[in-house]
């Protein structure tokens, strides 16, 4: 995977294409190994995306968030 996928769904879509291609049995050895490498990278990416929404629900209130953003944007708040 030379580039990071645009989104989780894009990564999954590409992953499904790769597995379909591998399942077809039409890929040669070089292509198979390349697809496997790309697929593994996509799996890693997707897994990281899932991890990012699995580590515990965070609840913020919009009012508090707005206040926080305002204070952090003030020059003397660093």
């Amino acid at each position: 995977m030379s580039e990071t996928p645009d989104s989780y769904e894009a990564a999954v879509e590409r992953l499904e294409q790769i597995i379909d291609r591998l399942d077809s049995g039409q890929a040669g050895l070089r292509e198979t190994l390349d697809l496997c490498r790309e697929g593994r990278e996509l799996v890693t990416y997707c897994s990281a995306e899932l991890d990012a929404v699995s580590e515990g629900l965070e609840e913020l209130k919009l009012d508090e968030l707005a206040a926080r953003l305002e204070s952090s944007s003030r020059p003397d708040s660093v």
Partner: protein
Amino acid sequence: MEELPGPFPVGRYARKLQEELRRRARVRLVGEVTGVSRSKVQAYFELRDAEGAVPCAIWLDDLEKAGLPAGGLRDGAEVVIGGGPDYYPGGGQASPSFAFRATHMRLAGEGDLLARLGALRKQLRAEGLFELQKQLARPRLPKTIGVVTAESGAARRDLLAGLKRRGWAGTVIWAFAPVQDRRAAPAIGAAIQELAATPAVEAIVVTRGGGSLADLWAFCDETLCRTVAMLRVPVVSAVGHERDSTLIDDVAAVACSTPTHAAEAAVPLDCLAARAALERSAAALRRAGEGAVGSRTRHLAALARGPARALRRERIGLNQKTREIRAASERGVAERRAFQRRIALVVLSRAARRAAGPEAKQRREGLRRAAVAFRAHEPERTLERGYALTEDVGGEPVTSAAAAIAAGRVRLRFADGRVGAEVDQDGEG
């Protein structure tokens, strides 16, 4: 008048009239209630507006089913009734009467709202505002969602439960707002806009529990709905229950019947199922990778075994030949030795035969003659003829007079023995 049909008995005509009226289409009427009265089984009233009035009757059972709030059927109330015209032919003592037989009734305030809602819906649809949100891409796995709802209420809890069931534990930004009164619509609109302006927010949920249309009316607000329609962040609406339909449902990207469903629409991906699917994908990739290499390795190994087998065959053949050659060679050496031995025997036997033949006799005769000649020259033969041999004391021959003088004493060797002698330098004296 005589040209008209009849005359018919009036009672029969009254029943026919009843049949005719009851066949008329059932409709809804809206108007103000006046002159309410009740019998044991019915309620009577007039429904009127500025243009006219119709006498109405409703069975108390039907009135109860209508579920109007206590005191709902009262003079001055705006109601919508459903039913059709009816006629009571009367009897011997009872007076005939006409009435619109109402079987359904509700307060007309809601009816007004629905009418207004219908008009708004038609207008916004005509403007294409229902389609804008539906064209937005909805991320299947948002990391942050914004939620507009009442701070207290079941909707909040149900939404969280729905997210949990998805296995989703990202970030929720709550924008609490009143959801039922004249302040609600502007507050909800402002909250939605603020959430949409927060970069991390990938989807917005607007939700509240069920209620009457009047309760939910804030979510039919034209300004709010136009705001939602124009947002670039997808909005999931879950306002009221399944049978309720508000205008925000029409303009939102997705309309859901419950907060739980809204959670599923905001996070379309079931994270638990996705993780399982991902593990299957990873396994499929492993199999494909290993299979591709493994099958080719086996194939190559099979191909490699061909030459190896051929080589082994050749090697076995070669070893066999080597053994044969060695054996043959050993046989050859033995044969050659035997042959050489035979040759040597032949040569020796020939030499032996030569030695035993006439040539040997001749050689023996020659030797005998040589021995005779040799003996003739021996000194003893000369001594036998009377000569003497002068020797020094050491036995060496003295062959001159000078040597004899030098030696001084010599020995004379005769054939029969030796005698000593003194050399006199003056031999003649």
